[in-house]
């Protein structure tokens, strides 16, 4: 099956810092989503981005489908950004969402 690896596994930042999270996947996909799982366990949709670049406030994401990776950028981080960030993909020809290994982000004041 498709492999989805995220890096770094853990990230500790001070408030105001910028960060880049990476997601590598091993096969062609027709769906890629980024989620933020908050400390209460809820998965919040950040981006649906199978290719190209999108921005939403302090967050932006870029997926280069031909090279099989996606990047999530967080600028001017805030303590509320803490939690686990997952990317998840659907391999072309299937309808199953496969989650990556996650990046745990802690932002300190």
């Amino acid at each position, binding site marked *: 099956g498709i492999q989805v690896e995220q890096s770094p596994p853990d990230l500790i930042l001070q408030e105001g810092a910028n960060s880049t999270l990476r997601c590598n996947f091993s096969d062609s996909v027709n769906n890629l*989503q980024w*989620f933020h799982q908050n400390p209460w366990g*809820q998965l919040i949709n950040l981006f649906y981005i199978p290719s190209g670049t999108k921005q939403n406030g302090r967050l932006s994401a870029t997926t280069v489908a031909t090279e099989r990776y996606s990047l999530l950028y967080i600028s001017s981080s805030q303590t509320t950004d803490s939690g686990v960030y997952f990317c998840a993909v*659907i391999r072309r020809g299937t309808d*199953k969402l496969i*989650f*990556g*290994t996650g990046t745990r982000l802690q932002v300190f004041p």
Partner: protein
Amino acid sequence: EAGVAQSPRYKIIEKRQSVAFWCNPISGHATLYWYQQILGQGPKLLIQFQNNGVVDDSQLPKDRFSAERLKGVDSTLKIQPAKLEDSAVYLCASSLSQAPYEQYFGPGTRLTVT
């Protein structure tokens, strides 16, 4: 538009007891998913419904887990009897029934089995 609703948010039971979770998907979403998320891991798909039919239940431990979606809208997931290793967050998600299958998740139910 209203999101995916789940209840209860938290549940604590003793091993060998039974428990049920409820999910109401986003209006118009024909596909409904139940995931189990063990602490420190990504969500794992348990079962997928299309309308009121099961599409995939290959990862559902059928000796103790059951799920139904009788009218093609809301769904219940039941565990009977519960084991200690069932302690997890149970997430419900929904999507339209055609590509790209963008999924939206509910707030989850955190189950603790003692």
